[in-house]
């Protein structure tokens, strides 16, 4: 009995951790961008204020049930994904052992798509052409980055003969080599795909303000937007932790986790600051050129 309670408590704590870290990363991103742009920038906790405010806003828009489902799908997807990502080495923290099972990596790869699809359904319901176009772009782009990402994952899975994240972390701990060194091409592929996953410049065509307002979320305000933002920050944490777990040997304590994920997070952020955005077809061409090339190499590397 107690263990289940503790598990639930632990799960909630994990969600809070993911949410907090994700939010602070978002804030840090805004701060860093501001500094590069010669500005002071908002406080690091600005995203918290934004989200709380969004939750306190009234919501009075109704475009049918699917619109309400969209953000719910998104948050469900991100929370579910989070449940399968081991936060710390050794499988858990704060009484919480994650829902790890053999094959969770494959599950995660699909779970991550699920959120976007839910979003697409919800946004499609709003009838806003901006959303519709945004969704189309998002899905097209997803096709772009998902293939190299899956390739790199498959490369790892074949190389280390495990489909479990905890399994990979154990292997790394045993061998003492991070996977980013044992299969560098897979890492490069994954990082290049990650650029797309974060929807930061140059792959922010989905919600490019100058073109489609804010894309899929054009019609979402107030609580919905709050949900989207929370889901986004949890999802960011999920992605970063996954990458750290898979490529960088995981983290044995929170500080290590923060350092590693933050370092990883800086790649899309800093690249985003300096890049204009690709058009959809250019983005897909990009993903299907270098990342795919590296993905194939990584597969070959894994195979031989």
């Amino acid at each position, binding site marked *: 009995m107690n263990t289940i309670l503790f598990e639930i408590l632990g799960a909630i704590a994990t969600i809070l951790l993911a949410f907090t870290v994700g939010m602070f990363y978002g804030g840090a991103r805004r701060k*860093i961008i*501001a*500094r*590069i*742009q*010669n*500005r*002071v*920038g908002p406080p690091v906790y600005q995203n918290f204020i934004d989200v709380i405010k969004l939750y306190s806003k009234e919501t009075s828009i109704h475009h049918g049930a699917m619109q309400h489902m969209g953000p719910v799908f998104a948050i469900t997807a991100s929370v579910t994904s989070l449940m399968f990502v081991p936060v710390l080495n050794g499988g858990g923290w704060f009484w919480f052992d994650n829902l790890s099972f053999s094959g969770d990596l494959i599950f995660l790869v699909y779970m991550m798509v699920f959120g976007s699809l839910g979003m697409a359904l919800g946004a499609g319901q709003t009838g806003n052409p901006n959303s519709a176009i945004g969704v189309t772009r998002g899905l097209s782009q997803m096709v772009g980055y998902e293939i190299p990402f899956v390739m790199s994952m498959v490369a790892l899975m074949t190389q280390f003969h495990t489909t479990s994240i905890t399994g990979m972390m154990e292997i790394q701990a045993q061998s003492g080599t991070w996977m980013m060194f044992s299969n560098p091409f897979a890492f490069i592929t994954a990082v290049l795909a990650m650029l797309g996953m974060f929807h930061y410049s140059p792959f922010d065509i989905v919600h490019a303000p100058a073109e489609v307002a804010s894309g899929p979320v054009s019609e979402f305000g107030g609580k919905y937007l709050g949900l989207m933002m929370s889901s986004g920050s949890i999802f960011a944490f999920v992605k970063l932790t996954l990458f750290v777990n898979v490529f960088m040997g995981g983290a044995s304590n929170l500080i290590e986790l923060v350092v590693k994920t933050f370092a990883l997070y800086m790649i899309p952020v*800093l*690249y985003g*600051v*300096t*890049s204009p955005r690709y058009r959809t077809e250019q983005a897909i061409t990009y993903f299907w050129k270098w990342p795919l090339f590296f993905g194939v190499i990584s597969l070959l590397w894994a195979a031989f």
Partner: protein
Amino acid sequence: MSFFDLKGIVRPLIGLSQFGKNPHTKRLDVLGKDTADRYRGFHYNDLEACIGCGNCSTICMNGAIDMVELAAEFNISQAKGNSGLRPRVDYGRCCWCALCVDVCPTGSLNLTKEYNYVSPDPNTFLWTPGVDNPYGKDQLSFVSTKETSLMTFDRVPMRELDGTERVKSFAEVVLGYNEEEARAEASRCISCGLCTEVCPDHMHIPEYINAIARGNDQDALRIIYDNNPLPEMCGKVCTRRCEDVCAIAVRGEAVAIRWLKRYATEQAQTADLIQEIVNPEIKEANGYKVGIIGAGPSGLTAAYYLALRGFDVTVFEAKQFAGGMTMYGIPKYRLPMDSLNKQVSYLQKIGVKIKFNTRVGKEISFDEIYKNHDAVFIGIGFEKPWKLGIPGEDLENAIPAVEYLRMINDGESYDVGKKVVVIGGGNVAIDGARVAARHDADVTILYRRRVEDMPADWEEIEGAEDEHVHIHPQAIPIRIIADKSGKKVKAIEYLEAEMIAEEGGRPRPVPIEGSETIMEVDTVIGAIGQEADYSFLTEEYADKIEVNRGRIVTNAQQQTSDAKVFAGGDAVNKTADAISAIADGFRAVKSIEAFLMKK
């Protein structure tokens, strides 16, 4: 583009180096405190320097500036030449173009560096500069200077005869503006109308100047004739107090209102032309008869407007020509005789009857006039010169200036000899001096006070100096010395004076003991003032019509103590100039009309 563009990926990353640099952001607490020295922020108006001309309100294309009356606690001057209104700016309209600053004639309206104001209440954006932001005084930024102002502070110079040329004849000294000059000069006017209040006659100055500026000279003349029947005379010799309060004059030279009037009248060279241009509406005869004594400015004015209003008007003039003092007291180089006669003959065309050479009390009795007319207007003016009050003034060659001028203007000759002294500092004195100068005399003016205290126009004084008239200020004549025959003047003795400042008044000349000087002269011309001659009033009327200190007492409507008798001109007012006389005549017309029509 190459297949793999490393440069294109790496070079943008150099920009990340900005991360380590200090942000350009200003701290919130210093934001907005370092505006440029010339920033155009809120207005600040120096309430004391402002004369309320309203030019700012006119130039504002947004209708943002209202002229409003402020509360009594601000002590806004209500003096003449100050409208007593102050600008109030609606910042819901203002666009900070600062044209109001650049057209402010006094330079009282300026902009400050202050520009921050936010409010939830849209009704709080109505500010009176200087009242709502008294601290603005220390934050002036976009200021009005004479150099940057859009006002033209320099008058178009009037062309004149050269000084040496002048003394040779009685030709008119001032040549008048030509069309181009007049337009340029007229366009300096800002049409505020402050001048009209000072003008005794309240002529419609901004209107006629504007008509000239727009090229409608005929309209200008029509507007002038609305309340002045002798504009050509005024255009030449008016004392033009209007120019003293001209808004432009605060920082520059006043608009040449007199010369512009002169320009407007010059288009009509004959009486017929005047009639053609002015083309006044003459009302049907109403059967009332009005008698007017004296064809001076006031009498003629009354006559003209009464005639226009349908009255039967008769003017009784003692002399051969109409015009009174303007005819006989002003030398011809300032006011040619033809000019005056032209204007008078226009009046006659309108229906004014003038009986010349008819001195009341001699050729015709006052009683007769009084009985035969429904109303009488007395405009006799000051004819009789004041005595100098020093020994020797009854000598043959000691002559009052008025008398001298009358003789010259009448065509009589009077030999002033080689050396002439004129006593006095008014216009008459200068006229006397300049006329004497035209007779090859060496003229000196003795005046009790300083040159700047002289009541005469500065232009006249300058003109006299150009004609080599020597002005000796601070000189008090004490006696005139006769020659051996005891009949003629030989010399004049005077004392030098020093100016002692007196509290609450202008400095007073005090003779310096032992400074007696004797100057040899041929003629002494006294010009210290004149008075009226009331000898025509028989005893019966002298009781009815109250005279006090040499002046007929009237109410504000020019009505004397006898309801049927009205008076105006020098004999009534103290200002003693033609325009006041005209104003009196004009006022009298209205009250005569009211008096008679009421019956």
